[in-house]
């Protein structure tokens, strides 16, 4: 993982972080947030995602939406790497409070405790919350 960003074509590259706090189903936030992230990849910015509170459930392995009658979009998180979005931060406290470990998640993530993640949020130029 590289923190270096190219200054291509003289464009200004900003640090965008998408903060996900909601469970994947029940509201439209998680899916809409993910779509915005995928679209944002086209603008060649420094994009990262944070998963906090129930947002950590978005990355849970083995999601089954059959009974909900909704599409299971969780495999799409595994496509993020192909979009060069590789900085996925998960808050340790949120994960542990829900009895989850990194092994329960369907993508490689960077686990940070609350204070570290707060500092990460502070570094960003733009924060978008879902």
């Amino acid at each position, binding site marked *: 993982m590289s923190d270096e960003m190219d200054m291509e074509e003289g464009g200004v590259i900003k640090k965008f972080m998408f903060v996900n706090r909601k469970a994947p189903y029940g509201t439209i936030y998680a899916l809409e947030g993910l779509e915005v992230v995928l679209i944002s990849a086209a603008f060649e910015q420094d994009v990262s995602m944070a998963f906090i509170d129930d947002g950590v459930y978005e990355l849970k392995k083995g999601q089954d939406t059959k009974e909900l009658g909704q599409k299971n979009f969780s*495999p799409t998180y595994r*496509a993020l790497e192909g979009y060069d979005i590789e900085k996925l931060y998960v808050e340790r406290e949120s994960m542990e409070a829900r009895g989850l470990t990194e092994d329960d998640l369907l993508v490689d993530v960077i686990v940070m405790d609350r204070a570290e993640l707060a500092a990460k949020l502070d570094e960003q130029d733009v924060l978008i919350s879902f």
Partner: protein
Amino acid sequence: MPMVDIAGKTVEVDEEGYLVNLADWNKDVADYLAKEEKVDMSENHWEVVNFLREYYDEYQIAPAIRVLTKAIAKKLGPDKGNNKYLYELFPYGPAKQACKIAGLPKPTGCI
């Protein structure tokens, strides 16, 4: 939503001609959609269409063109994973046209 008859089967398409239900797709449907797009399907076209279907199966999205190009380069080599090759096959946009023929929704972020 408009309905079209393809080889004796009625399928639903959206206002831009994309299949509404992925499960309606088969070779006849692909041929019909290709004809609508004025694409003459060769083995190389099928290779891209099949690649897209596999990609969708795995990730549940239609990839953006940049992502598609990179993924094809990885699997089929740089001779095929480049814009020139893909635009020759699908002149009106590989992501847009090939996705339509593959029965996938329009790629996210594609206007």
